[in-house]
């Protein structure tokens, strides 16, 4: 217990420095901003800001980047409620009842409960993270190369399973991600792989140009197909504080959403989006007035909004304790840690307690800041929503150019980014799931290392993956998911059922 209190105290000392408070503020501010603005998500933004973090300490960098991630979950609800366009994919469900509430003149309470729900969920998630992370990282010490390999296979399978659209296409994206990660010099043999004589490719494809291209440029090109004027509420939003009845109706949904979201968020493959759907379905199932759902039920906003926030906190568990990202965003955070020369894994908390505990405490601070940013200042964000996309997108492209150029002062990186932008745009049009590609790309080198090490340990015997219980369990689950999902109708009917229920 003393050790725990010492760690908390260390976290406070780290998070409350002027520098880290500043980066936390910048993170949640940018997170809210991009959450509000449709057309740019946390993935693109984090990759855009990665080069800026090179000059600051790893703790400050992670505090800021994490702030963007959970801040975007707050901001995403604003557009869902006010314009029926989800700012983030995790806010899709919020549109259903949030927009109906706004149409009935209850935009204020909807925004209010979304912000309070996110705050409560963020806080519960942070507390759970604090208590679970350490025992989890001790458990992580039992992991050797075979366990890591199998867990990564499970993470990719999970993400492909929960991906939108066809599982085959998601698996193709996973294979492409691993394939792209193979470009460059092989660390073991020193041979150049698939560089086609281009010197700039010897270090491999950069994470920043890849993500900025697929997420940033790709998304902009897609949005450019349809630039329309969005109709938002012209009047000032008033009455943000939910009434006592609103609280009574939604507090249960918030608590349930928080726990559900957190645990689904910890799953390899990540479950932020799925947690919002499940939370909505759950609330509708246990409600005494299920018929109200879809017509402006406050529980339909409170539950999913809490779930997506808690899930974004839960996703830090596998990242900090095992060094494994569970979704594309935490994969970028893993990239950021590695850029700063840190070795993510079970020893991270022990070796860098300042980073772990500082980030945790900064999450508390970030949640308070987000409440302030999202409630009293809501009218500023609404004004921002009125900035036409035709004005906004040239600036986004301009930032992408600077972001990718500044990594190596090379136009080659910008060209790579544009190439992946076109690829992302095309893949999106044909229903391919890009986050799976990103996760597989980041995990690719780790996957290769653990496979090679495992085979070295076992002298080439493949049964090493099935002789060890953790590894065998992970592979069995992954195999089960694959077999189950190839009975396409079964998988579709479950996802469709959740969608229809929502």
């Amino acid at each position, binding site marked *: 217990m003393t050790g725990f209190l010492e760690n908390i105290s260390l976290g406070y000392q780290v998070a409350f420095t002027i520098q880290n408070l500043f980066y936390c503020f910048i993170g949640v501010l940018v997170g809210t901003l991009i959450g509000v603005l449709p057309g740019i998500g946390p993935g693109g933004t984090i990759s855009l800001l990665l080069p800026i973090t090179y000059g600051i300490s790893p703790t400050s960098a992670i505090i800021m980047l994490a702030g963007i991630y959970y801040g975007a979950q707050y901001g995403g609800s604003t557009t869902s409620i006010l314009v029926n366009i989800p700012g983030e994919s995790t806010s899709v469900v919020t549109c259903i009842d949030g927009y109906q509430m706004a149409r009935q003149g209850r935009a204020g309470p909807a925004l209010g409960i979304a912000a309070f729900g996110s705050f409560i969920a963020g806080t519960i998630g942070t507390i759970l993270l604090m208590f679970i992370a350490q025992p989890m990282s001790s458990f992580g010490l039992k992991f050797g190369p075979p366990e890591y390999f199998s867990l990564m296979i499970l993470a990719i399978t999970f993400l492909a399973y929960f991906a939108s659209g066809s599982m085959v296409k998601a698996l193709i994206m996973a294979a492409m991600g691993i394939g792209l990660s193979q470009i460059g010099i092989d660390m073991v043999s020193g041979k150049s792989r698939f560089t086609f004589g281009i010197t700039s490719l010897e270090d491999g494809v950069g994470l920043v140009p890849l993500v900025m291209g697929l997420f940033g440029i790709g998304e902009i090109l897609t949005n450019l197909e349809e630039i329309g004027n969005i109709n938002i509420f012209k009047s000032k939003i008033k009455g943000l504080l939910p009434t006592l009845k609103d609280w009574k109706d939604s507090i249960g949904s918030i608590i349930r959403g928080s726990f559900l979201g957190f645990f689904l968020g910890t799953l390899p493959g990540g479950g932020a989006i799925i947690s919002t759907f499940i939370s909505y379905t759950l609330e509708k199932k246990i409600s005494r007035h299920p018929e109200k759902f879809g017509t402006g039920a406050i529980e339909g906003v409170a539950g999913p909004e809490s779930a997506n926030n808690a899930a974004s906190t839960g996703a830090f568990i596998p990242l900090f304790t095992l060094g494994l990202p569970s979704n594309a965003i935490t994969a970028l955070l893993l990239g950021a840690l590695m850029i700063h020369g840190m070795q993510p894994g079970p020893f991270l908390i022990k070796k860098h307690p300042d980073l772990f505990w500082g980030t945790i405490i900064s999450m508390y601070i970030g949640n308070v800041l987000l409440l302030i940013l999202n409630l009293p200042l809501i009218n500023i964000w609404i004004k921002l929503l009125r900035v036409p996309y035709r004005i906004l997108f040239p600036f986004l492209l301009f930032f992408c150019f600077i972001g990718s150029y500044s990594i190596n002062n090379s136009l080659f990186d910008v060209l790579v980014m544009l190439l992946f932008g076109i690829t992302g745009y095309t893949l999106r049009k044909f229903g391919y799931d890009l986050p799976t590609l990103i996760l597989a790309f980041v995990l690719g080198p780790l996957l290769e290392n653990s496979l090679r090490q495992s*085979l070295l340990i076992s002298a080439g015997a493949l049964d090493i993956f099935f002789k060890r219980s953790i590894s065998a369990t992970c592979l069995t689950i992954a195999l089960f998911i694959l077999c189950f999902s190839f009975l396409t109708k079964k998988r579709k009917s479950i996802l469709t059922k959740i969608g229809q229920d929502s």
Partner: protein
Amino acid sequence: MDQLGGAVWTLLGIGLCLGSLKLKIGGFHDPGAGFIPFLVGLILISLGVVLVISNSTMRGEPQDQKAPNIRKRNYFRPFMTVILFMIYILTSEVLGFLLATFFFLFSLFEITAPRKWLMSLLISFVATISGYLIFSFWLGCPLPKGLWGF
């Protein structure tokens, strides 16, 4: 369309396998530099074939396709944006950051709001200068220099 996609992935997989063979695949005892790319190539070939087969047997029953979009889409804007971005990349080390950025922003504004050229001119000018001051002077980011040194 998914059939064509499946064929592309299959070809890519074959290319990856052939490339891996040149790198030395090795075996389970001693995996070489081409080991993982070869496995990935095999997976791509298999999944590509599955995509082709599953779509040819489901003819008439489109799967994984969203409902037909009744809104009119504008493909000219994304196409022109890519072309302009390419020109921006190619000219930024000749014209320099300031001039290339100004022309890039101005032409992008013109694609989406062609009749407001004076406003586009003004926004592009202010944005270029502010961008230069913020990124070059304040944040110290290296920016491409042209023949004139700016």
